């Protein structure tokens, strides 16, 4: 018997697990940024730099202290909102991350607004034609689009819509002071490669959910009770079929950041992906660590939110104790 307190306990447990995951992630990220290069000063200043300069650099950034102390120093400041000082800009990292995150969320938001309805529609359609040629074709198309790297689909889309048809701007770098509609116009082309990559994932989950719901006893009851097809689909099938889609959308949000690295670089967009990429190029480890950990935190937050949303929307959980 599921009770409301059991649901609450489950959600608390999930939230705590996410925190534990983030703590481990912070150690992994820290080790990646501090330990892997071997000598931070040497990696930043290059092989030709004077040994004394390397030592001075390491002392200045605190890289000559024991690792545990360095980690504690980094993470305690991080949690207090101080993400460290960029090697490249000689300025605090946090404002850069904040601005880039907002930009990336705009791009990601548009991509999701486009792909979620499309994917669900495709998945439900395939489920209603299961086993037929259209179903098979749609599944295969979604899978194939899902494995084509974003920069490849970007190139093709840029050629079609930017170069040949001249419908959309080829870069996401909108003019200073552009209004929301202009920004939207500049963001359509960069969001399309993400839509193509994610379409198959969303469609697949929606398809499986719909097939299961169509097969369920409550659907048979609804049909036998004499409800119209539209009513059965809306009130009984979709409501149950779409729950797993929420979870998959949240997990895509984590994956999304990887695609953003490529797409934001390609379209000259100042988002978190481009920031991480630039930091990796310049060996700006404080910026890199902060950016990567932020991406991890956004992902953890998204999966907790997805759990909450699933619990809130699930008709089985909602009615109990209400």
């Amino acid at each position: 018997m599921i009770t409301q307190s059991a649901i609450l306990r489950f959600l608390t447990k999930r939230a705590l697990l996410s925190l534990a995951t983030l703590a481990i992630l912070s150690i992994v990220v820290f080790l990646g940024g501090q330990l892997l290069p071997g000598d931070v000063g040497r990696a930043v200043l290059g092989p030709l730099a004077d040994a004394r300069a390397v030592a001075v650099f390491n002392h200045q950034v605190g890289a000559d202290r024991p690792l545990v102390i360095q980690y504690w120093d980094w993470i305690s400041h991080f949690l207090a909102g101080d993400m460290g000082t960029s090697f490249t800009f000689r300025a605090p990292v946090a404002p850069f991350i904040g601005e880039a995150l907002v930009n990336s969320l705009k791009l990601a938001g548009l991509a999701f607004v486009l792909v979620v309805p499309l994917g669900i529609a495709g998945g439900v359609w395939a489920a209603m034609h299961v086993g037929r040629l259209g179903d098979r074709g749609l599944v295969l198309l979604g899978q194939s689009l899902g494995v084509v790297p974003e920069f490849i689909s970007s190139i093709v889309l840029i050629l079609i819509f930017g170069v040949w048809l001249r419908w959309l701007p080829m870069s996401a770098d909108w003019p200073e002071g552009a209004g929301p509609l202009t920004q939207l116009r500049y963001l359509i082309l960069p969001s399309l490669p993400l839509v193509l990559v994610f379409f198959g994932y969303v469609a697949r989950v929606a398809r499986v959910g719909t097939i299961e719901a169509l097969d369920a006893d409550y659907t048979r009851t609804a049909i036998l009770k004499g409800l119209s097809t539209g009513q059965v689909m809306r009130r009984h099938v979709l409501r149950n079929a779409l729950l797993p889609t929420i979870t998959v959308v949240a997990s895509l949000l984590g994956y999304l950041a990887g695609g953003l690295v490529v797409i934001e670089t390609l379209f000259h967009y100042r988002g978190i992906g481009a920031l991480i990429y630039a930091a990796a190029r310049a060996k700006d480890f404080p910026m890199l660590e902060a950016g990567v950990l932020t991406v991890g935190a956004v992902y953890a937050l998204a999966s907790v939110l997805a759990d909450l949303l699933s619990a809130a929307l699930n008709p089985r959980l909602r009615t109990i104790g209400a």
Partner: protein
Amino acid sequence: MSAGIAPVSLARERLNVALRSSTLIAGLAILTFWIVCALLGARIAPQDPYADNLLATLAPPSPAHWFGTDQLGRDILSRVIVGARDILIVAPLATLLGTVLGTCLGLCIGYLRGALDDVVSRVIEAVQALPLVIVALMALAAVGTSNTTVVLVIGFVFTPLIARTVRAAVLVESDLDYVAAAQLRGDGALAIMFIEILPNVLPIAVVEMTVRLGYAIFFVASLSFIGFGIQPPSADWGIAIAENYSLIGSYWWTVLFDAGATASLVIGVNLVTDGMSSVFET
């Protein structure tokens, strides 16, 4: 279990399914085409893929140069053919490394369980919270980029993902009678893991490997495009697109054919994966 007969007919049944699967055949055809290009390379290319010709730079597609020429007047068709080589070395090696390490790790944590399993599973979950491109980017920024480090980094990144799949399969196998029998016989843990359980989880590992191969090509191509993968002077497709991307407005042929080659390779591998999983589901 009707010993002896079942495996033979199962293998034959699988072969039948494989031969009837049009996606598998189509995928294998595309993959074979690119493997032949990778193996023979310059020998089947119509012209020298590395020879500059500054009198014929950025020439559009023509009978002399089917795919046109690039900024240095190099024949793009020849470079697309030769460009298959590096990605078809790096991506499969990385996948193989990840599969071998991941299968070993998955066997260990799935069979031994206990604290080791808890700790490793937690770390796997933490790493999964990050997109692979970002993990790879960070590691490559730290250790430096070369074909070897790309293989190592992608292999290590794949290890936990494959370990998770193998672990789930091992958990199921561990409850079966043959494992209990081996334990009662007094076999050591290593022998049980690698002689008894491994052959039974191998099909799952193989399917997982073909899935990962698709992703490996995806990542190697993406990393090469952003300068953290295969390095010039390779004729790699990702590098070619990065080098010519700024010309896309006027000289579409400098990027479109490389893009098509990459897309056909990943789609080919995906068709093989799709076909393979339906064969193993039999």
